[in-house]
């Protein structure tokens, strides 16, 4: 390793230390990046980077997708769309054993199609589904585990804020990533449904069946949920078919959900509009700060040459690529046990992404394919992290919404879904075509 790479290594270690002291991740990355560049280039060079990367990011047209998709997701969440989706799903499958858990997964998947945040999906579905399941004598842990698992769909099914961030930091096509996420997203839903089927067969008392809905009730439910289907077709369909650019698609989604929010009458409720706006504001600025900080830090990493040296060392060691991928999986699971998912991804991508690019030929992919495939891999690993103790943010969100359910019960309830996710991840590693098929088709 040369001098520059050692500086890069020291910078990375310094960043980890500063982050552990509680400094906001975006600021920590920017500060360490600037100090590192100061050492490697000079003070003037570091300031120029802040101008060129940090300030130019603020006026980056493509970054406007972030706040616009955030607005779309949060306004949809506050407009009560999740309750309508749950009602529709319940009308169709509620009479089966475990019907409400099936409905929770179905509604979470549909809600994820308009909301790119896992925590927002989990929080909104917890409010809607948990009281209903409690009333129908569902086992607390299993019910909460289902909501926590359903919530993770929010960061995979497009539009996903996590995939947007990955696309921005690695300069990968957003359209390709959103297309690539569709099949793994559908697989996730199928695996979760299968998991529910197995659990309810093994423990029939954990999730009893409800009364059967009439066809009139089903049609009513369907018509109530139609707005979500139309919105998804418009926003994501428009993006896939090339009718809209990502920014246009986000603008259409944001405007449509704002209109829906006002039409649903929520805006007239005291404080609801202000709360929603401030939530959008807080989330947008938080993510933007991270993007700017990550831009500066990634530039420092690139100048130090550490990612290249790291990739060379790993490839020269002759380790089989799948062992490297397994090590990356383990690394993310460990990080996920104490770090926030966005921070974890933004922090590791500048070092891990070049390594995966270097490994691409060994796993039978081009660098472009590897970038798309790895994006989905990372998001699924992060999904798993959202349910893994001791942090498992989705579990905390559910516990916050249902204080009467102990954390240990929720973790037990989540365990079968966690296993289903591991199987899905292994499938995606073994058959990359599951991810790459749709982007190539479009």
């Amino acid at each position, binding site marked *: 390793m040369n001098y520059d790479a050692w500086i890069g290594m020291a910078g990375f270690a310094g960043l980890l230390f500063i*982050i552990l002291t509680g*400094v906001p991740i*975006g600021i920590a990355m920017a500060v360490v990046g600037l100090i590192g560049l100061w050492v490697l280039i000079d003070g003037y060079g570091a300031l120029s980077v802040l101008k060129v990367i940090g300030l130019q990011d603020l006026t980056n047209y493509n970054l406007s997708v972030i706040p616009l998709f955030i*607005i779309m997701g949060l306004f949809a969440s506050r407009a009560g769309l999740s309750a309508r989706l749950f009602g529709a799903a319940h009308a169709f499958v509620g009479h089966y054993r475990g019907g409400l858990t099936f409905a929770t997964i179905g509604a979470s998947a549909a809600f994820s199609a308009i909301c790119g945040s896992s925590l927002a999906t989990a929080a909104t579905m917890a409010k809607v589904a948990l009281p209903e399941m409690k009333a129908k004598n569902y086992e607390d842990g299993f019910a909460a585990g289902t909501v926590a698992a359903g919530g993770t769909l929010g960061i995979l099914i497009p539009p996903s804020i996590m995939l947007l961030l990955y696309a921005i930091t690695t300069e990968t096509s957003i359209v390709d990533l959103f297309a690539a996420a569709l099949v793994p997203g559908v697989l996730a839903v199928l695996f979760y449904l299968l998991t529910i089927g197995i659990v309810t067969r093994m423990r029939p008392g954990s999730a009893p069946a409800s009364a059967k809905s009439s066809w009139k009730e089903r049609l009513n439910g369907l018509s109530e949920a139609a707005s979500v289907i139309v919105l998804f077709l418009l926003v994501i369909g428009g993006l896939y078919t090339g009718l809209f650019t990502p920014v246009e698609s986000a*603008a259409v989604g944001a405007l449509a959900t*704002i209109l829906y929010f006002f039409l649903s009458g929520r805006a007239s409720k005291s404080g609801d509009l202000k709360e929603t706006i*401030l939530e959008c504001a807080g989330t947008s600025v938080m993510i933007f700060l991270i993007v700017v900080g990550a831009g500066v830090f990634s530039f420092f990493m690139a100048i130090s040459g550490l990612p290249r040296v790291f990739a060379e060392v790993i490839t020269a060691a002759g380790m089989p690529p799948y062992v490297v991928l397994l090590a990356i999986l383990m690394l993310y699971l460990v990080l996920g046990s104490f770090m926030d998912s966005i921070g974890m991804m933004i922090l590791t991508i500048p070092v891990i992404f070049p390594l995966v690019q270097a490994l691409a030929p060994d796993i039978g992919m081009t660098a472009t394919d590897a970038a798309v495939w790895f994006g989905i891999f990372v998001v699924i690993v992060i999904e798993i992290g959202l349910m893994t103790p001791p942090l498992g943010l989705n579990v905390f969100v559910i516990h916050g919404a249902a204080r009467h359910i102990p954390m240990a019960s929720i973790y037990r309830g989540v365990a079968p879904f966690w296993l289903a996710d591991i199987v899905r991840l292994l499938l995606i590693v073994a058959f990359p075509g599951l991810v790459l098929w749709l982007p190539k088709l479009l």
Partner: protein
Amino acid sequence: MPLTSPKHARLHRKLLTVSEHLAMLGIAILAGLAVYTVTDIILRLFSLSLPGTVDIVSYGLAIAIATIMPYGFLADQHISISAGIDRLAEKPRAILAALTKLISSIFLAWLAGSTFLYAADRKEVHDTMWILNIEIWPIWYVLAVLFIFTFFASLFQAWIAIDLALSTLTRQKVEKS
């Protein structure tokens, strides 16, 4: 963050109210950008277009984010890891909290200063938007002013944190003696 005196609480409330209004303005700007973009899409169906959508959205985005930023800092809307700090004793935790707030303030001062220099730089070369022939330096000055406000918001948070750390140290000294 706990406020150590009524004076702090009053000032915090005032700053928070101003920043909340600014944040709402920021989101209104973003909604305006969505309207502009959607109008452009609709006009495209009739082979028409609005002028410089990319320019409007790009600079509108910058103004919106800078307008929201003070709220982000005053309301502590950050992604950070508190697991390590939460386990510390009260004294080191208070000192560390003050230090982290100071680091944020220093960074924001740096950002505001750089933006001012950048604005002056753009003015000197008469830099304009890509499509619309509008000079961009006034926008950068607006952004610099908003960053200065964010810096003061962050400095206020740092001041409270330092005050809290000092009062913790004093209290522990008194308790020891």
